[in-house]
């Protein structure tokens, strides 16, 4: 019977988990008031169409900020979050190098529980991931007991061996302790011990070191690297810290609002980042080098509400190089106006606000929107022209198709945009209209 190492060597590089068009949507229940007034409570598209293949023996990084969906994706890989659409297929290694396909997203109950011997997870918060009322021995040995793999003396031996493996040696010293007796780093080691005790194939690590002190992080990361080599593991490393991802991962997938926006080998991503979001992330990482100044040209704004994502490309409201096709809409106009008003005198702000009238109209995501009244349409137009001339390079103007005075007021029409899919460009895949070749269109000029 081939040992784990042999199988790994033979199968290195082959796909072990394949994710296809995965979507994980959560319906929002909405407050009582919302339901009373019949407003749609909406869905949060935590994961919104993700495709990738995890190769055996690699470390794949899922990098993103909050709301990017990386945590949900990690859980979905293990069947801990339900897939609303798409599939996750696990190629279970069998004898002689063959593999059985198991569709994780469709499994439940006992079948899913059996999968736990192969797919495991390391959690973010070491202080919360261990049951406070269980000793370390019980907690780390529990997987074996649950699956009936070992018990009694055999169980104890395996627990001791796992503890020693993660560096909690001598094991006897730690077996009878409770989580509250251990430090953060020790707890995380125990969590790792629990994850590897069943000899899994794939380990999903959800921000394993972000809650530990800097001086301890390196130790835990080193431990994980050693385990990967010793046990032939495949990792999915979820983090918001690009720096540790650069060190730890073979391939990196950058996520934004439920999508992968760029995915490729680590060196490629860092040497030549393509997606504007990736570029921004790299620029924004604080480096312990006082020569490096605070970056001034970072994308504005923040991660949008996942229940109401921007139309077209989700990043376009913040993107410094967006073009007409990126999916401009009325909400972007509101953001523009608010940004403009920050710079104005209060009196000018008051006057202009009067002209625009009801701002909440702009909150409906629409390609065509009418503001103001028929009386002040001309003045409104002049105001917008003025804003444009203050900053002609503002990407929003590339997306404005026309400004027209109508019987209801000033009608603003935006270009049709679309949501870019991942396309190969250079050594990576990028989801941006600018890659592999930039789209060139003339921005529409208002009459």
């Amino acid at each position: 019977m081939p040992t784990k190492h042999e199988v790994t060597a033979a199968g290195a590089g082959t796909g072990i988990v394949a994710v296809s068009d995965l979507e994980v949507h959560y319906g929002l229940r909405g407050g009582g008031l919302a339901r009373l007034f019949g407003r749609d409570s909406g869905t949060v598209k935590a994961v919104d169409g993700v495709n990738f293949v995890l190769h055996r023996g690699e470390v794949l990084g899922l990098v993103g900020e909050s709301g990017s969906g990386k945590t949900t994706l990690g859980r979905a890989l293990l069947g801990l979050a339900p897939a609303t659409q798409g599939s996750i297929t696990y190629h279970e290694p069998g004898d002689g190098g063959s593999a059985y396909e198991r569709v994780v997203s469709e499994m439940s109950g006992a079948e899913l529980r059996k999968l736990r011997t192969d797919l495991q997870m390391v959690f973010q918060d070491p202080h919360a991931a261990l049951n406070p009322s269980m000793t370390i021995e019980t907690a780390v040995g529990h997987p074996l007991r649950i699956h009936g793999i070992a018990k009694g003396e055999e169980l104890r031996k395996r627990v001791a061996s796992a503890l020693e493996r993660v560096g909690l040696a001598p094991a006897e010293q730690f077996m009878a302790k409770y989580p509250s007796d251990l430090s953060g780093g020790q707890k995380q080691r125990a969590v790792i011990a629990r994850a590897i005790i069943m000899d899994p194939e794939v380990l999903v690590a959800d921000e394993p070191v972000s809650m530990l002190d800097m001086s301890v992080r390196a130790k835990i990361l080193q431990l994980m690297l050693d385990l990967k080599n010793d046990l032939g593991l495949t990792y999915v490393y979820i983090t918001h810290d690009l720096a540790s991802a650069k060190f730890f991962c073979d391939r990196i997938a950058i996520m934004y609002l439920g999508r992968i926006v760029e995915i490729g080998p680590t060196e490629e991503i860092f040497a030549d980042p393509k997606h504007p979001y990736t570029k921004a992330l790299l620029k924004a990482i604080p480096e312990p080098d006082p020569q490096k100044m605070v970056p001034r040209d970072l994308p504005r704004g923040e991660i949008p509400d996942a229940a109401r994502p921007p139309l077209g490309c989700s990043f376009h409201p913040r993107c410094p190089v967006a073009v007409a096709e990126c999916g401009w809409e009325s909400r972007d106009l509101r953001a523009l106006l608010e940004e403009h008003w920050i710079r104005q005198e209060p009196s000018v702000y008051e006057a202009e606000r009067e002209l625009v009238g009801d701002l909440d109209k702009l909150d409906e995501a629409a390609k065509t929107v009418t503001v103001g009244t028929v009386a002040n349409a001309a003045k409104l137009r002049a105001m917008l022209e003025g804003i444009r001339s203050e900053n002609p390079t503002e990407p929003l103007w590339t997306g404005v198709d026309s400004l027209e005075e109508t019987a209801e007021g000033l009608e603003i029409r935006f270009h049709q945009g679309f949501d870019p899919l991942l396309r190969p460009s250079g050594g990576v895949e990028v989801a941006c209209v600018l890659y592999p070749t930039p789209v060139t269109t003339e921005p529409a000029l208002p009459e």
Partner: protein
Amino acid sequence: MFRSLLSPFRQTTGIARWLLLTGVFITAVFVVCALFAPWVAPLDFNQRYVDGVKLPKQDPPSGEFWFGTNDQFFDVFSRVVWGARTALVVVGLSVLFSVVIGVVLGLISGFIGGWLDRLLVFLMDTLYAFPSLLLAIVFSFLLRDLLGGSVVAVAFALTVIYIPQYFRVVRNTTVSAREATYVEAARAIGARNHTIIGRYLFGNVIQSVPVIGTLNAADAIATLAGLGFLGLGIQPNEAAEWGYDVSRALDDMGAGIWWTAFFPGMAIVLLVAGLTLVGEGLNETVNPVLRKRRLMPVDMPANEPSSYLAEGDAAALGAGAPDPRFREDEPLRPEHEHRRREDESR
């Protein structure tokens, strides 16, 4: 669980601590009476004759009968002592049943959620809304037909009243605990639902149960007495019961016979008070929000100016002048002595 009960005990101060100790003492007295009733009480609870001689009727307290005798020729003191046993047995049983049923239902309901949860919550809230004595009366009637007026029957009657309290607390704690990371971790390692409930949730949701149990017991004593007073409690020839004694002593009031009502009444009051004090005291110790931490006094030794300004004085410092940071020359105060030595180990 016990660790968490005992360790904060030491940290409470002042009133909370005295309350707890007083309550424990009072309760302990009654527990001793209950356990050792045959030895503490000179007579049996329904004993009318001593060596063939009938006891006097409604005799005032004296050297022979410390609490006097009542209209049924019983020794009041013995009745009080035996009553303690009755009270604690009945209440103990009922609290035990309530805890078991309430906690189990609360765990399951909180974990599973859905319509079962909503149904149970509705039921429990309804039960909880009734005054406990009223419910006790109802159930006492119902169970009388089935089980007569025995100790177990009354215990059952009391059980149902208190289940909602455990249910609510455990259910609510379970609902929040089930979102905890370690529960998700349990799922991740493949634990089945009953394992999660039993091994992962159970130990972490029952911290409040001892407090509730004690306060429940206090209320149950009073309710039991109420039942007995109304004649719905234990059959008089089954066991002694304080409430029953008080009801029989009502007529004595007019005649100036105070001891037949006073002593059983005091017993009820004292035991309820004792248990309540224990419960509230435990609440203060176990509940970290209420617990007033005992502020330890801080004794800071003299603080000399540091050598920061002594940049120019470095030369002066170097040659034999005492280093201001080196506190060897400070007069030692006894309570700091052992720490000083640690500091200066060479």
